[in-house]
Structures are given as structure tokens and as C-alpha cells.
């Protein structure tokens, strides 16, 4: 009597187990499907950007941005002399105070900080371009 009751309850437990497991298994299966759907586009469209990758500033881009900056600088009156080799003082007629302003504007443009010693050594567009290209964190 006791044995049959035990057996019956055991059989019921076995029979009940799959019936209960089915509804539990279904959402799990659905969620894994959803996840697969969410993952696929990010793989296909490269939604993840690697911010650690270098910006890869090209020489032309740096030069162009510095030229634009100088074009908008009110002390530069003769824009015809503006080229990659132009010297701030000899070609553009800027004095040392203006040069400081230009170098500060370049700092802001490329979001870097140039120490005084290096900043004092920048006297031409070419020197500025070379300095920016040598900075890994300029962008």
C-alpha cells in the first residue's frame, strides 16, 4: 500500500515535470531568438566604434584646418601669402603676441595643450603642422 502510493506519486512527478518544463522552456527559446536578432545587425553594420583607434590625421587635413583658422584671424590681412610654408612673422606680419594667440587657437582646434617651451618654438605653419602630426592625442 505504501509502496504503490510512493510509486504513483513518483510517476506523477515524472509526468508533471515535462508538462511544467515546456512553458518555462518556451520563453527561453524566444529570448534566445530575440537575442540572435539583436546581435545580427550590430555585426552587419559595425555599430560598435572603437574609440581607441587613432583618428589618423593626415597632413593635408591638419594644414587645411590651420589655414582656415588663420583665414578667420583678424590680424591676418594678406591672405594671398597664406600657404603651407608661410612664416607667421615674416610672411603674415604677425608679432609675437599674435603668434601666441594663433598657437592657442591651434591648441583649441586640436584639443591639445602645448607646453610653453614647444609653443615658443612654433613660428610657421609648417612647424605647427609637424608638431600636430607628432602628437598622438591631437584630433
Amino acid at each position, binding site marked *: 500500500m505504501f509502496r504503490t502510493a510512493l510509486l504513483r506519486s513518483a510517476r506523477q512527478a515524472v509526468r508533471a515535470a515535462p508538462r511544467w518544463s515546456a512553458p518555462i522552456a518556451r520563453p527561453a527559446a524566444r529570448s534566445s531568438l530575440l537575442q540572435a536578432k539583436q546581435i545580427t545587425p550590430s555585426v552587419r553594420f559595425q555599430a560598435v566604434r572603437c574609440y581607441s583607434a587613432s583618428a589618423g590625421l593626415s597632413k593635408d587635413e591638419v594644414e587645411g584646418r590651420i589655414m582656415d583658422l588663420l583665414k578667420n584671424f583678424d590680424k591676418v590681412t594678406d591672405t594671398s601669402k597664406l600657404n603651407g610654408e608661410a612664416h607667421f612673422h615674416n610672411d603674415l606680419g604677425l608679432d609675437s603676441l599674435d603668434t*601666441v594667440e594663433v598657437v592657442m587657437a591651434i591648441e583649441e582646434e586640436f584639443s591639445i595643450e602645448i607646453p610653453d617651451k614647444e*609653443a*615658443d618654438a612654433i613660428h610657421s605653419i609648417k612647424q605647427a603642422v609637424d608638431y600636430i602630426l607628432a602628437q598622438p592625442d591631437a584630433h
Partner: protein
Amino acid sequence: MARLSGLQRDVLSLYRRCLRAARAKPVTNRGHFQALARNEFHKHRAVDKKDFSAIEYLLRRGRRQLEMYEEAGVRDVKV
């Protein structure tokens, strides 16, 4: 440009500090601070570079002024 003397470099360094300090001010008033620094420096542009005592006096005055304007409570200036 010719090699700069120590005093000339001090002047440029002070000018740089002034412009840096202007960046810490509210964006709308940043231009005022920059214009103020520019005016103050250009006012004395004609000082002879051999006139050390005058330059040193102006440097001292400039540093004091910078300290005053640098305070966070100063948010705007009239140029």
C-alpha cells in the same frame, strides 16, 4: 623670429596664462576676457625691449590683475 630674451618669454607666458584663464570663464563672456587681455598687452606694445624696469613693473601688475580676474566669482568684464 629672433631669439627671445628671458623677459620677452615671461611676457608671452603671462599672455598665454591670461588666454588660458579666459577659457575657464562662461562661454558667452570668454570673448570679453580675451579682448581685455589683448587690449592690456597691446596698450604697452611700444615699450622699448631694453626698458627692463618698466617691463618688470608691467609684468608684476599684469600678474596681479590676472590673479584678480582668475577668481571664479568674476564671470564677466566690460571691455
